[in-house]
């Protein structure tokens, strides 16, 4: 009995080393096996992108920085590869200052890997900030004026990838890859009023609070953190590639089991202490 109680006083730094070791194994092995099951909202996102008509563009709105790159970059990667495969034109732009540089570097790496051409297949419109609701509703009315130029200062009219986009009529779908709550603005000012499909790629922290929007159709698909990206990879034929996302999904499995064991162990120690009358704290309330 006192073993459980003694276990309670393990130094937290030992726990930190333990979690690092537990996660290092799958990361070094880098298994390429992707999960078998694909959640319906990921499949719906795939179908929306797959059915974007020819003369329309997809907006990849990114509002994340280096802080949540581990979750949001695999989503950007999977979606971009799918659109390059299907020759669907798209633009990437960032509401986050650092994100403008990061999303361009990631996109450039994928563009080179897929032998796509900047300015023809896709364009990066750089950093946007200021009153979000005004910018989103403004781009729906006059895309060329509000978005102005790409991140190198080249006017949009000179880029074949986006020169044909006048207003909301040429927008086939909007993808919101985010770590902050921007979805409400897309829903209120562009996608619900103009009936444009919206796909949500949040960090996992925000995914639990999105299911009511999937139920109401305001969101037509969702990639839930890196797990959503891994499942999307299986849909675009990368089910056997040794990607970071696949390795992360197995490391996550190990992490979750480890965390659940910690909670169980901690509670057993707590109950043992309580039964042995050693109150680690004053009487309880509530």
């Amino acid at each position, binding site marked *: 009995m006192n073993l459980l109680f003694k276990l309670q006083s393990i130094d937290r730094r030992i726990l930190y080393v333990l979690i690092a070791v537990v996660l290092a194994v799958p990361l070094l092995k880098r298994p390429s096996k992707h999960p*078998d099951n694909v959640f319906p909202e990921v499949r719906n996102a795939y179908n929306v992108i797959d059915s974007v008509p020819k003369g329309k563009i997809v907006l990849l709105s990114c509002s994340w920085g280096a802080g949540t790159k581990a979750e949001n970059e695999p989503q950007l990667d999977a979606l971009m590869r799918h659109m390059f495969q299907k020759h669907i034109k798209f633009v990437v732009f960032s509401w986050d200052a650092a994100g403008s540089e990061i999303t361009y570097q990631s996109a450039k790496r994928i563009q080179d890997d897929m032998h796509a051409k900047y300015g023809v297949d896709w364009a990066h419109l750089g950093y946007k900030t200021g009153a979000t609701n005004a*910018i989103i509703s403004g781009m729906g009315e006059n895309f060329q004026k509000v978005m102005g130029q790409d991140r190198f200062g080249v006017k949009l009219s000179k880029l074949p990838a986006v020169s044909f986009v006048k207003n909301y009529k040429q927008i086939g779908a909007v993808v919101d890859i985010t770590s902050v709550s921007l979805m409400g603005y897309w829903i209120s000012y562009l996608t619900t009023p103009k009936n444009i499909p919206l796909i949500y790629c949040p960090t996992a922290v925000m995914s639990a609070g999105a299911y009511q929007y999937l*139920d109401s159709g305001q969101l037509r698909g969702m990639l839930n953190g890196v797990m959503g990206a891994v499942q999307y990879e299986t849909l675009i034929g990368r089910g056997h590639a040794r990607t970071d996302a696949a390795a992360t999904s197995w490391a996550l499995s190990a992490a979750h089991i480890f965390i659940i064991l*910690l909670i169980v162990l901690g509670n057993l120690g707590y109950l043992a202490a309580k039964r042995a009358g050693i109150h680690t704290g004053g009487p309880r309330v509530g």
Partner: protein
Amino acid sequence: MHSLNYIPLALASGRYSSLILLAYILGALVIGIAFLAGLMATPPRYRKIVVMLVTFAGGLYFSLEFLLPHNPIYIGKYMIPGSRGVANLANGLTAAKPSVADWAMIIGSFALLLGVSNLFQIHGKAVRKKTPGWYNSLAFFITFFLIMIVGFLKDYKLGFLGSHNAAAFQAGSGNLYNILFNGFVQSLDATMFSLIAFYIVSAAYRAFRVKSAEAALMMGTAGVIMLGLVPVGAWLTNWLPHTGFFASMRLEQITYWLLIWPNMAVQRAIDFGLGIGALAMSLRIWLSLERGSFFDRQL
């Protein structure tokens, strides 16, 4: 990297047009400063009203654009007299959205130095007074100006150095910029965010105690969903058939059901509350009904 030439007052036509433009800009600047001076001179008792009116005017744009009918209203064949004017106003507001977006984006961008000037005050004081750890503030200033200067230099061709040196200088600052951004900014931001994972690990072991039945229900649901979202969950109940009744007992199916029905209903209930709360909050801000807080401080 295309190089952007900062040639001030580059003007298409005529020798004097640049001077004329400069005159226009300076003239407008004088008007602007006069406007600010006028604001500064307003007596204290009118200031609160000015703030309230400006806030209300700001709120008018989107509310009218949405609420006003966009085409004239007919009762049978008879058109209500004013409604055509109202419809033109409403459509005018909608047509103005792109320029409103431009001005909002640019004025909003001017606020970028707000956070910076606050930091300059704090770290400036630390360096001046040599408070302990002042060298950290010095590092702040050095790195702040280093990445900013290198950022501008990588885009700007220093013609006077001669074309070869200028290109080398530009490439060099480009490399230094990449090292600073990819090496330092990205890794520091990502690592700071990842610290929270460690706090969860130690809290999981030492803080998450099932002290009440409701905590047990919450942690039980959390456990099921944590397993159901990751591949190991599917593996744990892989022995169950894929189809038929028992398929719904598979861990990922249970997780999915929990997410799209009970969790969805709870999130929607909370969301309705938040929605009405946001509506109330926006009304209080728009009509300056807030009392005893930031809005009411001594003007």
